């Protein structure tokens, strides 16, 4: 009930704001008075947007923020325009993901123009997340994560960049673009290897890279494993490395029982996450695939 009132009020404000904009257009465009009118209109749009927000009318709120952003742009206040676009994006996110992406892209353009790359990167991540969850367009999500990683790297925020890259790698592996995933994991692993705090997780990245190698080709995995051990001696006595060796052995003998046993032992100590489960299942399938063909043809 209260919400309905708020919405009505918001609609009124919107209409009034529009009137002001028109007035500024027709009479005193570019003059001092015109600008104050636009400023007022801007403020009204923002207020209307906030009221729509309270009424949970997200697309109307997004629209109002968008208008405000455009007016801010007219007034040459880039920063305000960008923040309004971000607000618009956040509001649209709940109703119209595609429109939200457009708004956030507009905000990113402004931010990159101003040289605020880390903020732009942050919004790239938001877009990627929308693609990931709402629109399920993983390819595009990957592209945005990559862009954001590039920006972060430019700003020397390596850990944020790594975070994005790891996302890219995980998705690439899921999409069976193993080469790309391997490259990223190796790169991140090499980057973190020398950092006193991060070197402890480097083994995870090498493990994942080796797994991707494994899915493509067993021999490659062996070579890669040797390479990693040489690069990063601490990898040798990690549980991940031992598991890999066992799996490779089992795969060589086409022994799916030994394979399962090794995986189970690993899982009993630390639980496998979903990504690892998927990858290990893919490898397991390749073992079973050779063993029998009659099952498929039934």
């Amino acid at each position, binding site marked *: 009930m209260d919400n309905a009132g708020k919405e009505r009020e918001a609609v009124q404000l919107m209409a009034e704001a529009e009137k002001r904009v028109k007035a500024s257009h027709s009479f005193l465009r570019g003059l001092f008075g015109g600008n104050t009118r636009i400023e007022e209109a801007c403020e009204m749009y923002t207020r209307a947007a906030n009221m729509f927000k309270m009424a949970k009318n997200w697309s109307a709120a997004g629209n109002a923020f968008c208008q405000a952003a455009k007016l801010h742009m007219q007034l040459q206040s880039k920063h305000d325009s960008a923040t309004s676009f971000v607000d618009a994006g956040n509001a649209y996110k709940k109703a119209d993901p595609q429109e939200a992406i457009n708004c956030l892209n507009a905000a990113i353009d402004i931010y990159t123009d101003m040289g605020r790359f880390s903020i732009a990167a942050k919004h790239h991540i938001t877009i990627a997340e929308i693609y990931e969850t709402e629109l399920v367009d993983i390819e595009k999500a990957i592209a945005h994560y990559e862009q954001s990683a590039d920006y972060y790297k430019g700003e020397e925020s390596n850990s944020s960049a790594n975070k994005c890259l790891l996302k890219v790698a995980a998705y690439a592996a899921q999409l069976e673009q193993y080469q790309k995933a391997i490259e990223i994991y190796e790169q991140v692993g090499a980057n973190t290897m020398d950092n006193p705090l991060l070197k402890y997780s480097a083994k995870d990245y090498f493990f994942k890279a080796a797994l991707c190698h494994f899915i493509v080709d067993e021999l490659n995995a062996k070579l890669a494993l040797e390479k990693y051990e040489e690069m990063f001696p601490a990898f040798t006595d990690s549980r991940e490395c031992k598991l890999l060796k066992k799996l490779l052995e089992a795969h060589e003998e086409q022994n799916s029982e030994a394979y399962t046993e090794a995986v189970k032992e690993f899982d009993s*100590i630390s639980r496998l996450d979903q990504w690892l*489960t998927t990858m290990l*299942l893919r490898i397991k399938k390749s073992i079973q695939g050779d063993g029998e063909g009659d099952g498929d043809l039934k």
Partner: protein
Amino acid sequence: MVGGGRVNQGDQLGDCPDAEVVTLVATQSRKQMSRDICVHTWPCSYYLEPEKQWVPGELSLTSLSLKFIADKTGKILVSFPLSSIIEIKKEASHFIFRSITILEKDHVKHWFSSLQPSRNAVFNIIEHFWRELLLCQPGATVQASSSPMTKGKELTGLMACSQKRLEDTAKVLHHQGEQFDNIMEGLDKIESDLDVADRLLTQLESPSWWPFSSKLWKTPSETKPAEGASASGSEALGKEGIVIKIPAVISQRTESHAKPGKLIVLVSGLEVRDSDSLLMHRFEREDVDDIKVRTPYEVSIRQRFIGKPDITYHLISAKMPEVIPILEVQFSKKIEFLEDALMLRSTRASSPAEKGCSTWHAAPGLMDRVRPREPSGSPGGQSQLQMSEPFISEEEAHELTQILRKLKSLALDTETELERQDEALDSITSSVDRATLGIDKHSRRMERLTLSEQPREELSTGRHSETL
């Protein structure tokens, strides 16, 4: 031989693509029916992407695949093998409706919503069966899967867990450190901007004759980073012989609170533990009043009380077929098979000699599952299993020391990083103080300037309105 047969089963399902499903259903389902018993069905609704609408129906899970059947048409809308799942997630559609999303191999996302009895229950069960696909070898015998966890292994598990946590903490800490560095940079920029502003203001105030000094507000803003400490509590297992221990999805009374955990069959009773190995309930052997086998994958255990509500636990597990024979030996009088599980009963009842040929009867897939577990069900196997040694082997001790060493160095590194961040925070605080002071000063100066400007401005706006 037995193992080979089961492997086939996996692949046959693994290779049925989505599009052909509807046509293949008639032939396939018959085959699957016999091999693959439905674990559970839940009423729910499914989102049809092209039509953009939710269709009510039933989601049914077998031990190898997942199907959705629409209520109205009875058509199978979705059917895929569990092995093609990439990811299972809990999400909210339209930010309100709690639903489960399953990402299939070719990045097809399936939305299931309005799940009955609760989303978490369904999620846990589906995830459990998906994981078991990887973790359990169809041909493996029960001995392997039920090998009791030694103390050493458990310790290793705990240590590995804390190591993982500490690694994550280190990652976050590092990220935080980087952010502090960025803050410092940002503050430096602010300071230099303030210098410029200062210069410009002085220029504007050039005719001013009043020295500006004022009492300033001090608002030191400082945020203490929250430190996520990880603690893992656990309880040592009882000393007595563990017959079998399986992961299971546990729910009490109603199914709405299902969560993953473990069922441990002891010689003296049953223990239900949650995922952190904390004891949820212990049934003494004499106390168990009945055990109902609902499907080969689901049992419920009940203990009656006079004047109090019964204690009932429902357990669903992919490994349940291994446990049922054991339970049957232990609680022979109290176990009860419901209709779905009746065939299990019949196979159990037949003598071992007949078993070979009865494999060709109704549920061969199930029979296979039951048969190799036979030895563990017999009393001989049990007594052998009773003697689980709680010692730590040389190898485990070695691994433990290794993990401990890593933990120690990790902790030391974390400490140095924390100290560094403390210092950074100190300098950030003072720098923020300086900046607030500067901004305050400038705003006052600007106020004064605009105050002197205002009369002129008012004049100009007045003129404007006149022209209008």
